[in-house]
């Protein structure tokens, strides 16, 4: 079965289909009352984790081991008093690698990362990032200073990356003990120095699972690719994209040269370009981009959040996009054709696809 976890401002919905991915049933809402910033199915054991936030009761993580029927909440999650800051939001849960039983990573605001080794019951803040020497140069974006991207290198058990708005991309080669800024070549055009060491507003960061030295990045100021683990970045949005601004990013799980973005007008007008829900695909590493329109609505003034784009690992792979106006668009053929799999959901904050019985 294919399960598309849809986090919304009013709980979690799950779209379920067979592997043909043509007909969808909608389960939920689960976690009523919670803003589900992100939810993910752990491919190691099928547990679902949700980064949940509520304006009264704060930020936490929920876990379900029965595909959403029942939930438990993390016991301990917070920042030490010595840090001078409190946990504001939970943003992204990243399951650990195969063999790292019970390990999870959690990104949150203000620019913080947690690690759990007990399947999310308790979380320990990653002190090296909390006290990073450049932190005084980080600043919150419109969504707060969120650690929204956590990527684990499958080929190197100690290498990982985080993306924080607006601090930039950081790489660790020692399992999170220390972090190196990885922003060379990415612009921060809103700063006096447009190419600083840190302060870039990365919107989404993804590592290609088949070619883990390759990273893709949708930034506040452009779309980028790195082929050297983030040591340098090449800007790609001058190659046919209508705008370099956007939030979500998706990849082809088998082709490192293929990526998808959804450009928006710009920082001051955060809506899709030219009144259409335009998904742009490159199949040559960002040398050129083509607009996918087959089955997508037009006219459409849509917004897609940074977590609102996902793909499965079937062959051909499926790709899923959720709009703030509550629609899920799905493609079962790598983006050649699209159909609306759900509509009239609450504001969609995140989409995450999984294949699980």
């Amino acid at each position: 079965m294919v399960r598309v976890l849809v986090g919304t401002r009013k709980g979690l919905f799950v779209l379920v289909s067979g592997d043909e991915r043509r007909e969808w049933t909608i389960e939920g809402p689960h976690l009523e009352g919670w803003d589900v910033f992100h939810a993910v199915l752990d491919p190691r054991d099928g547990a679902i984790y949700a980064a949940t936030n509520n304006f009264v009761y704060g930020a936490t993580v929920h876990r379900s081991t029965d595909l959403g029927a029942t939930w438990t909440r993390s016991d301990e999650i917070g920042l030490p008093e010595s840090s001078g800051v409190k946990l504001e939001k939970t943003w992204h849960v990243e399951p650990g690698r195969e063999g790292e039983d019970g390990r999870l990573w959690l990104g949150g605001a203000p620019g913080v990362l947690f690690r759990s080794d007990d399947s999310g019951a308790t979380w320990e803040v990653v002190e090296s990032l909390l006290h990073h020497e450049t932190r005084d140069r980080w600043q919150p974006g419109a969504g707060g200073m969120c650690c929204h991207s956590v990527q684990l290198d499958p080929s190197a058990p100690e290498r990982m990356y985080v993306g924080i708005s607006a601090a930039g991309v950081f790489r660790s080669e020692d399992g999170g003990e220390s972090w190196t800024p990885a922003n060379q070549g990415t612009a921060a055009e809103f700063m006096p120095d447009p190419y600083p060491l840190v302060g870039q507003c990365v919107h989404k960061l993804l590592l290609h699972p088949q070619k883990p030295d390759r990273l893709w990045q949708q930034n506040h100021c452009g779309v980028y690719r790195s082929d050297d683990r983030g040591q340098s970045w090449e800007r790609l949005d001058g190659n046919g994209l209508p705008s370099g601004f956007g939030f979500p990013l998706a990849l082809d799980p088998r082709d490192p040269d293929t990526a998808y973005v959804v450009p928006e007008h710009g920082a001051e007008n955060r809506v899709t370009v030219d009144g259409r829900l335009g998904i742009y695909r490159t199949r040559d590493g960002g040398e050129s981009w083509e607009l996918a329109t087959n089955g997508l609505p037009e006219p459409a003034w849509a917004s897609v959040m940074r977590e609102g784009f996902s793909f499965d690992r079937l062959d051909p792979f499926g790709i899923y996009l959720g709009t703030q106006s509550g629609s899920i668009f799905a493609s079962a053929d790598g983006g050649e054709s699209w159909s609306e799999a759900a509509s009239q959901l609450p504001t969609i904050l995140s989409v995450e696809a999984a294949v699980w019985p």
Partner: protein
Amino acid sequence: MAVILLPGMLATEAGGQRRFELDAATLDEALRSLPVANLIFDERGVLRRLVNVYVDGVDMRERDGLATTLAGNETVRLVGAIAGG
């Protein structure tokens, strides 16, 4: 024993239990013994700003706050502040 009544969302988080009967000397002690204490209090142990607490219908701020003593026959009601959309 004092009776603690939770709003719907907290009751769900408490496994579906809305009503708790507790022996506690103070309001603080009673609230911290609840299974949803980490939703009512933040990581520093401070009561979250938008959680309102009423003791026999009176806002705890008009009593002694969390230090309000409980004789054991009170009804304590938790209410999430009315806000948002």
